[in-house]
């Protein structure tokens, strides 16, 4: 199977022409990661996002005395997406390969001024949907807890803060 075939099998690229995927392969170099390897470390500069093509990655928040799992990412999923849309931020979690994995490296610089490449457009559309789902899910749980909390709304302000 060619690298273009691998990408074509991912749901987010289902309607993307092969020529666009061939160009996408040049924009986003491949990264092979052995099982157990840490790819992104909490607190380090966020300069790269990863599209998982094969394998599985996990994200954990380092709480000092233990690692708290916050997500797992399989083929077709993107992790570290903040690096694509802003510069100078830091990682909020550590990412490690659960199994030997193949990824595509996505960088701020690969995007260009417009999403003329259909694969880049598909990736952006996918991220809009996925980030909306993640934010909804988080808000739903926070609200449920807030509504059952014993009336101390100052703590909620501390939690949500200013944007």
């Amino acid at each position, binding site marked *: 199977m060619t690298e273009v075939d691998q990408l074509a099998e991912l749901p987010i690229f289902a309607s993307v022409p092969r020529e666009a995927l061939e160009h996408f392969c040049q924009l986003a170099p491949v990264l092979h990661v052995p099982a157990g390897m840490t790819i992104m470390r909490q607190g380090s500069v966020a300069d790269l996002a990863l599209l998982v093509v094969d394998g599985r990655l996990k994200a954990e*928040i380092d*709480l*000092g005395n233990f690692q*708290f*799992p*916050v*997500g797992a990412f399989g083929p077709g999923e993107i992790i570290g*997406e*903040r690096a*694509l*849309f*802003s*510069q*100078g*931020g830091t990682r*909020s*979690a550590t990412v490690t390969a659960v199994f030997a994995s193949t990824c595509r490296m996505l960088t*701020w*610089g690969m*995007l*260009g*001024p*417009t*999403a*003329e490449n*259909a694969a880049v*457009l598909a990736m*952006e*559309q996918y*991220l*809009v*949907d996925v*980030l*909306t*789902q*993640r*934010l*909804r*899910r*988080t*808000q739903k*749980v*926070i*609200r449920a*807890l*807030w*509504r059952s*909390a*014993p009336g*101390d*709304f100052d*703590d*909620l*302000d*501390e*939690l*949500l*803060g*200013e*944007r």
Partner: protein
Amino acid sequence: MSDPIATRAAAGFLVRYSLPDLRERQLLELFGRGTRVGYEHGEIICREGDEGGDIWLVLEGTVEIRWLDRNRAEHAVGHVHAPDVIGAWSLVDGGPRGGTCVAMGTVQTVRFGSETWHILQNDPGIAGTSLRRLLLASMSEQLSDGNERIRVILQGQGHAAWRHALRRILEFVSRG
């Protein structure tokens, strides 16, 4: 005709989100695809639970976010300061508004309706790319900020009851 509010907002977006190759004039082109809408102090921009048909780029001013408690009483839970994006979730997934947005002082926005959004969401050109990336930058910042606050609270700088509650949040979210 020059529009100083839009120009300041475009410059502000570029400072806040260093988006690839994005220029002020491109953002102004994007603003031109929407409808300029102003709100006076206390005016409701969108209401919790309503169906979402619009997204707003806040060009100037501050928007207060309010949630209803179990007794249907409103509580302010945060503020969004220009330049930023509000109202995106409901437009994207068709779900109800997650909170009520109220203008604090005069607020200037550019509003995009669902029809324009769907055109721009599929547009590989400057306007569509700019809107998607502004939205993605804002959303990814919200998620990242949330992770950081949760981490700080879990590490012992918050109220004990909230630490317990937030552990439950993390457990839930990590299953998603």
